[in-house]
């Protein structure tokens, strides 16, 4: 088997101190290979969100190591982790999290702006990303003028516009009806196969998890099972 893209080794995470301390992760070990489509499942409080935050370089483990592309992420400082997010990661959230009163195009351009892309390139690349999610005619619309499904597609365009290695999706279909959910899942599958983007997706729904090739189940702060299909 190839070197894993991501590996967690004995990762624990404790929130609070003393008597109020709560151990959210109790030694998580997992590996994700390049190009995989992973669904992360588990009940609330099972530690899947905490794990996703650590994998998204938004949070750090209390102990254990997080190896990404062979480097130890747990040893990096806040800005270095931000640079990892900027270069290699894309995020899609349950609540879309687009900037209000900002056109779809400007939302998609945002990560390019932080990367320091020149204005003319920025526009071209962002339009390509919007084209990939089929929203070119809506480029000038603000989130308030778009449907939920369209907003999530803008969010996906924003996540893949930098051609990240990994796309982290936190219940991307949680706020959508089943028809829109299927559209989103098909988009994710397409980016996984066509662009080779590794996808890590948290979901509660078995139908959505069915799009994934690997399902990782969490329970009580540890990985309960890994199913490969």
């Amino acid at each position, binding site marked *: 088997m190839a070197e894993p893209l991501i590996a967690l080794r004995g990762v624990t995470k404790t929130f609070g101190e003393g008597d109020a301390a709560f151990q959210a992760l109790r030694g998580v070990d997992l590996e994700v290979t390049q190009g995989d489509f992973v669904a992360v499942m588990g009940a609330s409080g099972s530690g899947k969100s905490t794990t996703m*935050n650590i994998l*998204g370089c938004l949070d750090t483990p209390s102990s254990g190591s997080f190896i990404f592309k062979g480097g130890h992420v747990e040893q990096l400082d806040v800005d270095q982790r931000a640079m990892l*997010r900027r270069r290699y990661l894309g995020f899609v959230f349950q609540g879309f*999290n*687009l900037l209000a009163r*900002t056109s779809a195009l*400007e939302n998609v351009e*945002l990560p390019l702006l*932080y990367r320091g892309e020149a204005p003319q390139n920025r526009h071209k690349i962002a339009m390509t990303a919007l084209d990939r999610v089929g929203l070119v005619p809506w480029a000038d619309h603000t989130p308030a003028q778009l449907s939920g499904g369209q907003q999530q597609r803008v969010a996906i365009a924003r996540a893949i516009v930098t051609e990240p290695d990994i796309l982290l999706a936190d219940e991307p279909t949680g706020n959508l009806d089943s028809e829109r959910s299927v559209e989103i899942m098909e988009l994710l599958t397409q980016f996984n196969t066509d662009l080779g983007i590794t996808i890590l997706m948290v979901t509660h729904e078995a139908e959505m998890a069915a799009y994934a090739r690997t399902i990782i189940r969490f329970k009580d702060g540890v990985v309960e099972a890994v199913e490969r299909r």
Partner: protein
Amino acid sequence: MLQTTFVLAFREIRRHILRSFLTLLGIVIGVFSVITMVTLGNGATEAIRTSIASLGSDVLQIRPGQNAGPGGGNGEVPPPFDPADVEAIREQISGVTAVTGLAQTQGSAIRNAQNWSTTISGTTNGYFIAQKWALSKGRQFSPGEEQAGKSVCVIGQTIVDNLFKGIDPVGQNFRIKGISCSVVGVLEARGQGNFGNDQDDTVIMPIKAVQRQMTGNQDIRAIMVGLNPEYDAATIRKSITGLLRERRGLGSDKADDFNVLDAKQISDTVSGTVNILTMLVGGVAGVSLLVGGIGIMNIMLVSVTERTREIGIRLAIGALSHEVLLQFLVEAIVLSCLGGITGMVLALMACVIAAPLMGLPFLFDVQINALSFLFSAQIGVVFGYFPARRAARLNPIEALRYD
């Protein structure tokens, strides 16, 4: 990177146009009031200075009397000067261009049915030199007229307007304080003096005529001394004081019983007072600028809270915390600078309109404009930093979860 930050900041300001406008308003009002107050104040100072200078800045006026004040003024009326004092100054003090005594009285000027109460000054041609007051018509007194104390006069424009409406007064006769007097000249109009007095309401006659026919004595109420500007005014003043003390028999233990008034000195005192008032009002306006700055901080803080989720998104997609800090800081600075510029433009417009209405000259003060602008930019930095730091320190996970 900085360019990116500016792009983001401008987008954000445009996106929240009402909020930006309200934030701006405080600074606009602050800068506006500081600049308006100081500019108009400077205009007032300048107006006072020029009108006092028009009195003749190279003139000393000497009058009998004591400086009022603690320990001063024992109730005695000091004696007036006599013609010999005038002669003594003229002969013994160097650096004077003209010395003239002044005998003054009040009286009615009557011509036909017109009756006008005015001030009559008895003096010599030296008065016109010392006051730098030219004639618009006619001539000064002839040596013969001065010598003999002839009943002739030079009149101010106000007398012309009241007694000689529509006719050339030169050569005309009228009655002044009971005697007949013929007009030989008309003074140039000077308008209002510094203390609201009408300088043109005056009749000037040879001093001997006034002393002999009106006051009935040799008293001189004031001596005017024109100064050669090449000489030091303070030195001349000192020697005049010494000379007069000697002539008036004042021992070294006695205070002066006369005043030497220097128009320049009056001018400096009055404009100094107005300057202090300007600074005071400017200071009060400065406080409103400060309040405007606090307004910016207030709105920026609210905006950080309101935009918590947005900050979370930015951090998640790879913004560094110092980039978020910079964005908020630049927003605050851009807002306060815009406010500063708007305030400046409005203030200049207001001053251009108000200054002529208030009868003041419009003086553009580069210093106060630059100062107000820099101060408003500074306000952006100072009051923007705290909210910006708060935004930059947000935890992205919590910020994303924030509703």
